[in-house]
């Protein structure tokens, strides 16, 4: 694409025009010529990202796997597009006055795909499966601190006895720990269950050809009468994002998520396609470092670097103008987002002063580890140029993306970049990253005030009171700079016009099960 020097005014106008067009494209399906209800039948073909290893939700690690799990399984409770917890397999629940017992009433007449009954025993079996340390489920960590025991009151009532009041429990049960698998099938298939999953979901597995495709078909005995609308769903593995997008354009697939921002402007002319942008974006990028050892145990130094970064430039260059600068670890639009919070801005003069205060008036140099992909290398180059302005230099060390996270965990990596997606409960992310006991706390961040705020907030069920605590926590965390928050990124889905009822859930996992295809 040729780069023409334009004066800034038309650049603004062009960007506004793009935003307007994107908004129109997103809203267009909401105004159909003749408003129809759901249309039954058809096969939805999805351009799927690779790397799916298991379809057992209690062992699922890869994003791609959950695209399928949400169709084959149900969770105990669900999430709507506003990220609120709503009934699913549990049709109602009550919290005891002391907050240490949650009672769920379950839907009746629910069957697993293998014909066995879903009931309170099944729920108990599932939770115990996750909690059992011998099973080594990665989903144990969100549940173990909270759940003492699960008891069956009657076939359709299950009771969670908690070790302490724990408000985040419900949101956790809407995610991977909450998926309910068929105990009969899991016991029978053992390790093979991940290959041949059996749940209560609207679709059941027909076949899974690894690295090729997954085929699901409608489960006729699904408990939600009238759903699903589609007959079949086919996930076709397409590793290359450009090819994925091409296939939506040729009509070989109906929908693809995980689209690169750079490909979006090129779709402007295509009337057969709908582009859906997740607004506001619920994923943020950041820099992280170890704050419990030199050189970054120096708060003034951390603040200096945070002030020197021009997030708007990062957004414009890396995200093609989509997304927005990040203020803190909370994406906008969530019930615990503080609209008044500004975060650390961009101020080069203040940065220089902070650097001097930190004792590095003559400049500072440190190693920076980056994942060896074009996108992150690009970001690092931009950061390098920005930080040069305050005389901070980066010694760039590329590492394999596969090893990047484990190196951080093993403390082989100090200063690097990272990204995280929001969970349905504020505790889901803030605790694991910023509490001194959080299991994903790889910065060594330990602020007793933050610990106290997070512990308090997790024990209160009242959203209003929790919100105030999370506002305070966000401010303190951002000010302490264990992470330098960069941008809230944009996420896109591209589909052909026949696909109806699409909507993003802020955990950025596409929910395909309620879609239908126009004829």
């Amino acid at each position: 694409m040729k780069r023409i020097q334009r004066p800034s005014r038309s650049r603004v106008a062009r960007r506004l025009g793009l935003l307007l067009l994107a908004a129109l494209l997103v809203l267009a399906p909401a105004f159909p010529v003749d408003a129809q209800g759901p249309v039954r039948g058809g096969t939805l073909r999805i351009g799927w990202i690779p790397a799916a290893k298991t379809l057992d939700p209690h062992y699922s690690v890869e994003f791609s796997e959950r695209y399928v799990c949400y169709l084959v399984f149900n969770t105990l409770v669900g999430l709507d597009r506003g990220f609120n917890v709503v009934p699913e397999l549990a049709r109602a629940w009550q919290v005891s006055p002391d907050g240490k017992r949650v009672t769920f009433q379950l839907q009746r007449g629910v069957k697993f795909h293998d014909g066995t009954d879903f009931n309170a025993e099944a729920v108990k079996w599932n939770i115990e499966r996750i909690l059992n340390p011998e099973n080594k489920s990665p989903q144990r960590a969100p549940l173990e601190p909270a759940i003492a025991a699960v008891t069956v009151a009657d076939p359709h009532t299950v009771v969670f006895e908690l070790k302490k009041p724990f408000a985040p429990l419900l949101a956790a049960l809407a995610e991977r720990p909450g998926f309910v698998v068929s105990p009969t099938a899991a016991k029978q298939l053992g390790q093979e269950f991940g290959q041949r999953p059996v749940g209560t979901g609207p679709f059941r597995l027909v076949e899974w050809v690894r690295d090729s495709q997954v085929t699901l078909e409608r489960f006729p005995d699904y408990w939600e009468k009238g759903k699903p609308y589609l007959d079949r769903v086919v996930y076709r593995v397409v590793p290359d994002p450009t090819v994925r997008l091409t296939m939506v354009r040729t009509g070989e697939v109906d929908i693809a998520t995980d689209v690169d921002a750079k490909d979006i402007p090129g779709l402007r002319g295509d009337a057969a396609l709908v582009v859906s942008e997740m607004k506001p974006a619920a994923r943020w990028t950041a820099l992280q470092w170890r704050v419990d050892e030199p050189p970054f145990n120096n708060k003034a130094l951390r603040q200096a670097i945070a002030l020197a970064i021009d997030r708007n430039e990062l957004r414009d260059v890396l995200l093609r103008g989509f997304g927005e600068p990040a203020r803190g670890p909370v994406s906008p639009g969530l019930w615990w987002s503080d609209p008044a919070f500004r975060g650390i801005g961009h101020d080069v003069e203040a940065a220089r002063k902070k650097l001097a205060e930190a004792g590095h008036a003559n400049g500072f140099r440190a190693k920076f580890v980056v994942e060896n992909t074009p996108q992150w290398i690009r970001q690092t180059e931009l950061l390098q140029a920005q930080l040069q302005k305050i005389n901070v230099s980066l010694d760039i060390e590329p590492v394999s993306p596969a090893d990047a996270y484990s190196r951080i965990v093993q403390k082989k990596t100090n200063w690097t970049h990272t990204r995280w997606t929001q969970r349905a409960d504020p505790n889901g992310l803030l605790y694991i990253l910023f509490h001194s006991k959080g299991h994903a706390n790889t910065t060594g961040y330990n602020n007793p005030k933050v610990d106290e705020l997070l512990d308090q907030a997790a024990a209160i069920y009242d959203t209003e009171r929790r919100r105030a605590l999370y506002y305070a926590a966000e401010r303190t965390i951002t000010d302490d700079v264990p992470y330098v928050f960069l941008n809230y990124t944009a996420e896109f889905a591209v589909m052909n016009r026949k696909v109806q009822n699409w909507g993003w859930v802020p955990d950025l996992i596409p929910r395909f099960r309620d879609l239908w295809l126009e004829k």
Partner: protein
Amino acid sequence: MWVLILRRVAAMAFSILFLTALIFALMQAVFGDPVVIMLGRDADPDTVARLRRDLGLDRAAHVQYADWLGRLAQGDWGRSFRTGQPVLAAIVARLPVSLELAFLALLLAVALALALGIVAAVYPRSPLDAGISVLTAFGTAMPNFWIAILLILLFALHLRVLPSSGSVALLDDPWGHARAMVLPTITLSIAYLSNLTRLVRTKMLEALATDYVRTARAKGLREGRVLWVHALRNSVLPVLSILAVGMSRLFGGAVVTETIFALPGVGILLVDSILGRDFPVVQGIIIVVTVGVFVTNFLIEIAYAIVDPRVRYQ
């Protein structure tokens, strides 16, 4: 003959031993920790430690290797760390796709290389020869994935005659299967085809300049007979050698092609296993590929003996 086979098998066994030990040592030295990759960012340290213990990854490297070797001797190839599938079953499930792709690419490459190479040799320094030279230079220099994307954009997006990616089982839909294999085959064969064409051309030119060809022409033989029976047969030997090398490379898994066209072959499995630090699968693939290389080399040796009456083995 049997002694020859026995010697080859012994060499193969030794190679497998050596290669697996070497790769294992390399992986231990260079790779990160598979357990964190397997359990993801949410797992607590206790779960990570347990899994590491269960998989035996907390033992010394040589202990792990010896254990793996011991189980292999009993026919147990182990299970994939990432998927839990038995290793041999996982690899065997992928082989047909890779073998078919390699075979078709080879067929196309050899057929076209012979045709173009001979034509270029018969009309040297003509516009046709120049054109073929340019094409082969292009084919050698351009990266695989770039050619693949171009082909997809042309045939799938603009002309809409072929699918962009994906595979269709042969038995389900033979015609669809054939269509799905066209672009991957072309992509995989291009670099190989280009090299082979140049080689055929050179060797043919050499053969056509020899005394015996001149004699044959002087005797009044038809040009066709001169070409096919005399010149080609003698220029084919070095081509066979290149063929052996090429087949081994193709057999190892055409990683880029398989990735772009989403063909579930051994190549993709190998890359995913390396990235996922899935030691058992990587070791398993090394064995399978080594066996394949040895077998194809052996077949080429037999072919040599058939084609060249001067070659005889003890």
